[in-house]
């Protein structure tokens, strides 16, 4: 779980009841195989994006207006500056909001924001704005770097960045303290700005872990840009199916799912006992555990997609990248189930602390008096919600995989080709439910 020594994550969710976990698992299994027989037989997702209904004129104009874009960028800069106040000048104590802002409001808060509005971090990213401003001052085109962005790079830098962040969040010693957070963010900012100078602002699209994270989740938003740039209302499934395969995409998706699963595993009593009795510093079993869980998720994925490719008769080596988008809703469902109450409860606490980032007794935002309210969060309601989002994510993943399988595989072999994919998704979903039940 999150860094406890500094008071983050004081209360955690109860394990879900066994009946709820079982129900979710059976539903996932039944709906997957029912879907295989009943869904459409010609690929129909993503293509519809071209014809999606444009949003109202005023919203269209607002979204495209330079004044609006600059307001959002400046909001991102101001937010980052306010965050740095606590990070650089606040005392290193539990009353400092920095760790809560980074691990709860930013990392977890980006999930609902992206689910509603799309790739919001791309618009807010203060590093992108800094690069843009520096280029404007030097009268250079921000899109042009020292050299062109290599085609083969794809999402690999973002996958590496996401791994580095999840390692910081879940494993790094003293990860809630200011020097550790500050050092990590400084190194990350330098790496991102160097990438932008070298390859131009296009580097941020797939190189910045948080932009890629927000973009992956934002594919599920009901609003998005169609290929010609028009803002449209769309089916989230079309949005997700529009995620084009690129090198490193599989890695990015697998790190997202695997790291969250590791967070659950590391909370299980057997793991705590193992780490404490191993006698080694916790960072060694922690890092090993994180790598092993991600590797297991990856191995399952590569094995199942290779088998699907063989049974389905697809061109060798294509299935893994082409199907990566179908794992995203499963990962997002699990993320939401895992982090929902943390965001609600610790989010309130962090907003209250944010009013006094220097811990001098100030109340700059007027939220200093907030007390954490668990309004309506009964254990039964939370468990029900967790199982529901996991099953919804699973069903969306199944539908996406089905649709893509129809495009990848010849008709004759499309059904056998989907069997390994269904089993993979059921395995991910059941593992997720088991972790919520047991860990």
């Amino acid at each position, binding site marked *: 779980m999150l860094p406890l020594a500094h*008071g983050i994550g004081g209360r*955690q*969710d*109860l394990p879900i*009841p066994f009946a709820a976990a079982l129900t979710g698992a059976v539903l996932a299994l039944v709906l997957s195989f029912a879907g295989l027989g*009943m869904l459409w037989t010609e690929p129909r997702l993503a293509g519809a994006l071209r014809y999606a209904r444009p949003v109202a004129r005023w919203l269209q104009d607002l979204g495209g207006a330079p004044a609006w874009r600059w307001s959002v960028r400046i909001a991102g800069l101001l937010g980052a500056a306010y965050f740095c106040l606590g990070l650089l000048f606040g005392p290193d104590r539990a009353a400092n909001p920095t760790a809560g802002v980074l691990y709860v409001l930013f990392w977890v808060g980006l999930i609902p924001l992206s689910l509603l509005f799309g790739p919001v971090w791309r618009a807010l990213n203060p590093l992108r704005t800094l690069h843009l401003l520096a280029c404007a001052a030097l009268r250079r085109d921000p899109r042009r770097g020292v050299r062109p962005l290599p085609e083969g790079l794809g999402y690999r830098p973002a996958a590496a960045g996401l791994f580095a962040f999840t390692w910081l969040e879940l494993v790094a010693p003293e990860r809630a303290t200011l020097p550790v957070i500050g050092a990590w963010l400084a190194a990350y900012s330098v790496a991102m700005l160097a990438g932008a100078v070298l390859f131009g602002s296009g580097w941020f699209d797939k190189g910045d872990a948080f932009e890629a994270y927000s973009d992956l989740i934002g594919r599920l938003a009901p609003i998005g840009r169609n290929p010609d740039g028009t803002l449209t209302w769309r089916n989230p499934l079309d949005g997700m199916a529009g995620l084009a395969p690129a090198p490193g995409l599989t890695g990015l998706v697998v790190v997202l799912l695997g790291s969250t699963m590791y967070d659950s595993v590391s909370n299980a009593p057997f793991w705590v*006992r193992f780490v404490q*009795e191993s006698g080694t510093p*916790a960072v060694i079993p922690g890092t090993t555990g994180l790598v092993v869980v991600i590797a297991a998720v990856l191995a399952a994925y590569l094995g199942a997609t290779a088998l699907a490719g063989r049974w389905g008769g697809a061109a060798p080596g294509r299935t893994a990248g082409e199907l990566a988008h179908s794992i995203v809703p499963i990962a997002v469902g699990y993320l939401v189930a895992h982090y929902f109450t943390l965001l609600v409860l610790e989010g309130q606490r962090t907003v209250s602390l944010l009013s006094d980032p220097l811990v001098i007794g100030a109340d700059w935002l007027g939220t200093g008096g907030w007390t954490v309210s668990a309004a309506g969060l009964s254990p*039964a309601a939370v468990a029900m919600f967790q199982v529901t989002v996991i099953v919804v994510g699973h069903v969306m993943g199944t539908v996406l995989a089905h649709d893509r399988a129809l495009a990848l595989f010849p008709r004759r072999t499309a059904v056998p080709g989907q069997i390994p994919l269904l089993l993979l998704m059921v395995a991910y979903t059941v593992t997720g439910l088991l972790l919520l039940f047991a860990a």
Partner: protein
Amino acid sequence: MKRFAARIRSLAAATLLGAALLGSAACGGTDAAAPAPAGAQQAKEIAVTIKDRKVTPPPGRIEVAKGQTVRITVTSDVADQAHVHGYDKAADLRPGTPATVEFVAGQTGLFEVETHEQELQLFQLVVR
């Protein structure tokens, strides 16, 4: 046409099954949320010993009912501080001297109990 009808039938069957399953889960959930009879239980006594960084009994989960009084006694071989997260109850530990924290578990959830200096998890308190 026939095939279409068969599909509709199996779709309806799957939906019914799903609804039935969801219903059963909802019922299971309601039972779990029923409030514990206040004051009916005795206080839960939990004793933990720390020696050479080894926690006895080994870290696990201890369940108590919401509203129950919890009394935790920790004996450590080095000076440290024991802390119950979420409830924010702490006790200073002096070498060899048992220290006790007592509180009413009024909030449901899972709470880690640990020491701050040696950073050992003693157990997880599960309040239902």
